[in-house]
């Protein structure tokens, strides 16, 4: 399977490990990706707060670049905010001719145009539907039995476009997690907002939202995410939130492909595991330990 890879700005900066783990995991699963040449920022949540047309034109330029380079080849997007922006631009291009005309006017000078022939896919969509839990299970090199994993979907990979899962009660990460031997943490915060950019501009509100998520994750060893904004919000303020709430809420936060990559036995460096901000004491030993396999066998025997 071949995709254009659209990393997005965060994956070249604060979320470098997400990009490393995504490319390493896809290579291990037999996928083929090629970075979209000359891509630009999707506008994140800033463009939609300033200009309706800008928030469509910026992501549409990337669609136009992909259409020009290889018509019909899907674009794979690991960041949920980038995904939503590109998916929305695609939606408007396909279903709103007046807006499509406006968008194409903004691309004209560069000799680009967009018709909607390229599909936009979230990494989670591709992992679940194109590869599936079986492909992870078949290549398993290390059982993660003993780990309890809380799947965190966030908002924008499934809302407002519920393309590959139920946006109210998503569950598509669960087969992938179970394929590694790990257990899924039962919780209700998997699709509740982390506050997005409130973490920067309205910190007290952002911290309250993240606090609720961390609270519900108690009992899990790790939360896995599929968005650099969610990841940053969940991992960066744990000390402060623990202090506010008077209990230790520190927990490891990994990107989903980092967890799956460990299960496939990929080198930690290739997964960027040295770059995460939120790794709880003792967690890496648990993730690495070859004993995990033996514990599972014992448990099975018992």
């Amino acid at each position, binding site marked *: 399977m071949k995709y254009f890879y659209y990393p997005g700005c965060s994956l070249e900066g604060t979320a470098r490990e997400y990009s490393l783990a995504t490319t390493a995991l896809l290579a291990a699963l037999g996928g083929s990706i090629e970075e979209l040449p000359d891509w630009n920022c999707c506008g994140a949540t800033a463009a939609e707060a300033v200009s309706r047309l800008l928030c469509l034109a910026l992501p549409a330029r990337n669609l136009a670049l992909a259409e020009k380079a290889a018509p019909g080849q899907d674009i794979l997007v690991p960041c949920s905010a980038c995904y939503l922006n590109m998916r929305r631009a695609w939606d408007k291009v396909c279903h709103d001719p007046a807006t499509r005309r406006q968008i194409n006017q903004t691309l004209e000078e560069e000799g680009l145009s967009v018709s909607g022939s390229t599909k936009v896919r979230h990494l989670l969509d591709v992992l679940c539907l194109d590869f599936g839990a079986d492909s992870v299970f078949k290549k398993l090199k290390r059982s993660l039995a003993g780990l309890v994993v809380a799947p965190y979907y966030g*908002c924008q990979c499934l*809302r407002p476009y519920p393309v590959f899962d139920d946006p109210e009660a998503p569950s598509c990460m669960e087969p992938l997690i179970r394929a590694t031997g790990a257990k899924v943490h039962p919780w209700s915060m998997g699709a509740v907002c982390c506050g997005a950019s409130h973490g920067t501009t*309205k910190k007290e509100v952002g911290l309250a939202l993240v606090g609720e998520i961390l609270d519900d994750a108690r009992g899990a060893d790790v939360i896995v995410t599929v968005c650099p904004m969610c990841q940053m919000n969940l991992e*960066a303020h744990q000390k402060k939130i623990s202090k506010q709430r008077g209990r230790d809420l520190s927990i490891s936060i990994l990107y989903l492909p980092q967890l799956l990559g460990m299960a496939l036995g990929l080198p930690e460096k290739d997964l960027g595991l040295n770059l995460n*901000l939120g790794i709880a004491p003792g967690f890496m030993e648990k993730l690495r330990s070859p004993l995990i396999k033996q514990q599972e066998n014992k448990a099975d025997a018992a």
Partner: protein
Amino acid sequence: MIPKERPFIEPDKFHDLEGVQKMLASCIQCGTCSGSCPNAFAMDVTPRTLWRMVLTGQKEAIFQTRTFILCSSCYSCTLRCPRGLPLTEAMSALKQIASREGLAPYKASTRFYKSFLDSVRRHGKVREGEMMTLYFLSMKNPLLPLQFAPLGLRLMLKGKVGAPFPTRGKRPLESLFNKVMQLENNP
């Protein structure tokens, strides 16, 4: 360029509100949006009430609430609205008016959006370190960077953010930005 901030919106600047009113025209005031909103606890006016204020044209009052600027675009309300209204888009449309008019109560957010897009316009992609520096400069609050210093330092030690100094850049998206401005000003 950050436009001069005004405390309240000027009477002739409300033409955008008509668009928002159209989006919300069939609102039945059921309150599903307020019940679904993760940020409602921090709002002074609930989303349901805000829609009523928009539909009844209470322009000055709308732009004194914290409600729309606290929308984190989670799309829960949009998904659940029994009338299928584009509620998150309506929140964004109000943010766009606040950004365009540079309304003072919202400057902590609107200056962040502008700093972000300024960095995108310079380089085609956002440079996170540069964006934060532009934001601090625009807020003119010398204490603000201190709030972010511990996290910034952790990110720098991991080699995740580059030099925070703004650079001029090649401005590869200039034609796109210019055309957007032209089309929005003369639709």
